């Protein structure tokens, strides 16, 4: 990563901007891979929809040097508004109105709830960041009514949030805590393969949904993997090259 957080060791708007740009680039690069996973058990649009949404988010993110979101539209954060709450809320509303399907409300809710939890803070310590992420995950669960092992994005989010809390609670650096969260998400993602879907369109397939890695859990792992690679200066682990998403489920 060429750019890192303005303040090392804490989450701030500059770091989040780099993170989301990196995530958008990864989603674009893996668009067809995500769509193919969805074609097996869903309706073959997850990669296309996430790419459209993240392109819209990227278009509203500030360029280097600006703090908040570059948005002239009503309701969006202004460049001089560096609060993380406003930034996450704007990201969430953009995703909600551009992704569609089920992923739009779920990813949108994740960021909207993170925004509510972050409120007017401009920096977050690792422990505070773990709390903000956990609030987002709780929002996703309320929205989608999904529990662990339903074969959804929750299977990557829940272990990631827990790993983040545990690492931050034991005094780990932001980079190390984000790395622990990404690795836990990868494990949760891989564990969706043998599961029978109990939520969403895949649930219509019943037992036939087993043997396929969940596309939502896969894009969620990408979100956490790119966080680990960027927030707090980045901590590139063994899985940072992202081989998890390929070759699974067959």
């Amino acid at each position, binding site marked *: 990563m060429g750019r890192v957080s303005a303040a090392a060791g804490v989450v701030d708007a500059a770091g989040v901007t780099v993170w989301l740009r990196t995530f958008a680039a990864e989603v674009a690069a893996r668009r067809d891979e995500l769509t193919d996973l969805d074609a097996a058990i869903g309706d*073959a649009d997850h990669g296309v929809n996430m790419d459209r949404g993240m392109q819209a988010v990227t278009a509203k993110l500030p360029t280097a040097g600006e703090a908040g979101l570059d948005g002239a539209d009503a309701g969006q954060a202004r460049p001089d508004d560096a609060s993380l709450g406003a930034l996450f809320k704007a990201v969430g509303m953009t995703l*909600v109105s551009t992704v*569609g*399907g*089920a992923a*739009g*409300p779920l990813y949108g809710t994740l960021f909207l709830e993170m925004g509510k939890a972050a409120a007017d803070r401009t920096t977050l310590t690792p422990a505070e960041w773990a709390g903000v992420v956990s609030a987002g995950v709780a929002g996703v669960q309320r929205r989608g009514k999904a529990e662990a092992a339903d074969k959804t994005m929750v299977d990557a989010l829940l272990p990631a949030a827990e790993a983040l809390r545990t690492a931050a609670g034991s005094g780990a650096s932001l980079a190390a805590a984000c790395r622990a969260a990404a690795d836990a998400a990868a494990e949760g993602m891989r564990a969706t393969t043998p599961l029978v879907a*109990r939520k969403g369109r895949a649930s*219509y397939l*019943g037992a036939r949904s087993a043997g396929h890695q969940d596309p939502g859990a896969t894009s969620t792992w990408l979100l956490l993997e790119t966080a680990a690679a960027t927030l707090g200066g980045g901590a590139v682990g063994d899985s940072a090259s992202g081989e998890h998403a390929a070759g699974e489920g067959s």
Partner: protein
Amino acid sequence: MKKLINRPEDVVREGLGGIALAHAGRLVVHTDPHWIARADAPVAGKVAIISGGGSGHEPMHGGFVGPGMLDAACPGEVFTSPTPDQMLAATQAVDGGAGTLHIVKNYTGDVMNFEMAADLAHDEGLAVEQVVIDDDVAVKDSLYTAGRRGVGATVLAEKICGAAAEEGRPLAEVAGLCRTVNERSRSMGVALTSCTTPMAGKPTFDLGDAEIEVGVGIHGEPGRERRPLATAREVVETLAGAVVDDLPFARGDRVLAFVNGMGGTPLLELYIVYNGLHRFLEERGIEIARSLVGSYMTALDMAGCSITLLRLDDELARLWDAPVNTPGLRWGA
């Protein structure tokens, strides 16, 4: 793919443009975000009714906007749920001071997007109630699935609730009526061919020349089973049998019988199905008191049909008969 389109990515926008021009004066089509409203909305003091869903099911829902039915409809991309900003904008605009009912078909994306829209509307102090329609008996309903899909009963609920709203009934009553229609309705469909979405450009599923998909959904979702092509009489027995057994409908019941075309089946064949359905129900002592035959909830170019039965009482029959004046459904007006 052989379709009368210009570019696949322009299908929804250009279709809405056509609706706006063809029904100018009756409907207003808004863009960015997309929603269709009756020209005289908001109607002061009347409960507003909004529905929405992916495009490709026309005339549902935009064709059901007008006096006696919907106040607004929110079309998504083809077979893709609309987004909350569409439902929020429509709700803000058509609310006539008596609150708004959202009629939602039970698909994961639709349900979540409408829930988010309701949350946003509530934050703005608007009264919104939502009713989820789930009448498709082809799907096993359990805690371990997304539940039954919303199909034919949606059209009946939009008509009946629209009539109740025109009478000035309050939001809680109109929503209660919507739940009643859903509880008393059951549907099942069959596909003779797949459909082809413009963006995919190829059939959604493979179905042999001599095969049918029994229990298909309106986006080409798999059904209960794949079978060899059968006569209309045999297909009616399968669909109507599953529908009647599920509620169950019983001797002495008076029903509204709705034979719906999926988009690629001629009206002549739908009447052959209706003929068989009439005989099937007569043999079981079930009286068809009202009927609707035609392509009202389609799946693009899919050939096939669905059968929906609604157990009527005098009140539901009266509301069904009330005037309606929309591009897709019109009588008494």
